[in-house]
């Protein structure tokens, strides 16, 4: 057993980077604008599917298709935004789960368009194999060749991906840090704290909420694209509501209202989630391998509940600030 195989941990780190982008989208929607969106995964699905369909069917170059993917995610945001911003938080939470599930069911059932339950592999029918990923692999290859002048033999496509994902995540974190401190961000915070007061000083509450929703949708779409490129294949089952829960978990781990804590949350989440794959040591080795899978999910649930009871404010959060919230 080679627990410290760098290739494996590179993969885990790439996934953590993608989670940062995903959770950042929720941060904008929930922590800034107070919209509890539980259907975030729908933006990922729509962006990934749009990108893959355009590449495979319309033979579009990957970057163009990717932009259309983001546009589609934002368009879905518009569609959801119009009813959503009117809804009370608890109704919105459930309605957004429903919207996310609808996208997943449509992706499963519109098989002439999406390839059906088989996913992106079957985009042109179940008996043909297609891939949308050639352009991305090319890009990573070229990037790793360029990097090899600096890093030598340590430059692999995987590490190039790691670099791409984390630089993107870092840049986005920086941009949103600036946005959060801009007048725009302050208005959003005001709206979250007291909608009536914000309206009273003449702010168009619905417009600001919609803007936050759309920005979050774009980030969700970006995360969906990155995930599609990283895995190389996706299917409707990948976009179950669980993924949105994971993204919220990352926000909570870091501390709900801490932008800079998102990477910490993503790292902790990835370590915990990956770490539970290693539960094969004594005394767990006495349990058969099938039952260990149930024990693993049980322990994920248990750690989650335990964490919420012991440190509800997150690793970097402030307990007093938490208690002030509703």
């Amino acid at each position, binding site marked *: 057993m080679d627990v410290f195989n760098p290739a494996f941990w590179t993969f885990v780190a790439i996934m953590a980077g993608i989670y940062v982008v995903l959770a950042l989208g929720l941060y904008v929607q929930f922590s800034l604008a107070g919209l509890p969106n539980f259907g975030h995964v729908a933006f990922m699905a729509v962006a990934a599917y749009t990108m893959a369909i355009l590449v495979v069917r319309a033979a579009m170059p990957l970057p163009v298709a990717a932009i259309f993917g983001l546009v589609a995610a934002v368009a879905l945001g518009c569609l959801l935004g119009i009813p959503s911003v009117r809804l*009370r938080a608890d109704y919105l939470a*459930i309605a957004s789960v*429903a919207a996310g599930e609808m996208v997943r069911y449509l992706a499963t059932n519109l098989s002439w368009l999406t390839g059906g339950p088989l996913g992106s592999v079957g985009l042109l029918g179940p008996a043909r194999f297609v891939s949308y990923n050639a352009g991305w692999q090319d890009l990573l290859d070229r990037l790793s060749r360029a990097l090899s002048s600096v890093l030598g033999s340590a430059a692999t496509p995987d590490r190039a991906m790691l670099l791409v994902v984390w630089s993107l995540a870092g840049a986005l974190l920086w941009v949103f840090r600036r946005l959060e401190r801009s007048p725009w961000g302050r208005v959003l915070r005001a709206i979250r704290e007291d909608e009536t007061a914000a309206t009273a000083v003449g702010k168009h509450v619905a417009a600001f909420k919609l803007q936050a929703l759309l920005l979050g949708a774009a980030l969700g779409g970006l995360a969906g694209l990155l995930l599609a490129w990283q895995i190389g294949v996706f299917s409707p089952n990948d976009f179950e509501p669980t993924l949105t829960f994971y993204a*919220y978990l990352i926000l909570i781990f870091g501390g709900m209202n801490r932008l800079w804590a998102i990477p910490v949350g993503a790292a902790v989440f990835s370590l915990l989630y990956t770490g539970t794959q290693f539960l094969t040591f004594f005394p767990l080795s006495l349990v058969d391998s099938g039952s260990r899978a149930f024990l693993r999910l049980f322990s994920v649930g248990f750690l989650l*509940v335990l964490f919420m009871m012991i440190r509800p404010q997150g690793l970097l959060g402030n307990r007093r600030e938490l208690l002030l919230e509703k």
Partner: protein
Amino acid sequence: MTQFAELVVTGLVTGAVLALAGVGASLVFGIQRIPNFAHGEYLTFAAYLAFLLNVPFGQNLVAATAGAIAGTALLAIGIHFVVLRPLRGRGLVAMSLVTAGLALMLRDVVFLVAGTQVRQYAIDQTKVFALGFLRISPGEAVAIPIATVVLPAVALLLARTPMGKSMRAVADNRDLAAISGIDVERVGVHVWLLAGALAGLGGVMLAVVEGTFDPNLGFQVLFLIFTTVVLGGIGNAYGALVAGLVLGVAMDLATWNGFFGGLDAQYKPVLAFCVLIVLLLVRPQGLFGRATVL
């Protein structure tokens, strides 16, 4: 015509399960401000508890159901005191995550203890009861009388008893209820007791109606329960009763040939979500909800 009638009956049976589970989930959501993502697992727990009493211990199904109702009510109370009450007031998202974590724990415990294979109660599922031109299953034959007794009883409990009245009062406006002298804390315990008992009954009914079941039983209807809650208006118990029945019938009738030739069955699960979203566009507070914010 027979098809129509049979679809209405099966729809009402599913609807009754959704109504029972939905009332509890709605009151909990309204009173405790908890979207209980573990509610489906309460149903699963009840189904397996009844199975344990019914098959290995050889009790009849009535006794087994009574045991399951009591057991699930205890489970709900236990989780309330151990986990949820200490975490009170943490907000919608935090409570969603905690209950999702609880759901994961409960589901996998049932998997570990009961195994993955399908189970069925000691009743002959292939038996047919002819009721006029209707052919109904033993599950439906049991579920219909139960539903016709229990659903009005629940409505009566909420309308007439002091406990029911205070529950509705707290769901409606917590602060106002508190200053009117209602012990909000006690109502909180009662609501979990009621929700647990109804989930217990609903779980056994669901298992009987499905015929065979596995530990995914409750999780598979979780989002339908939530749809019921939102359609009826969060915290509105009567709303959930009606919404559950309407949703159950609507989903089964959608595939009826008389309804524009019938919806393609593969879109049936989407229907509930479509109804929900369209309804929220028209009435953002649900079918019977009130527009005021708590």
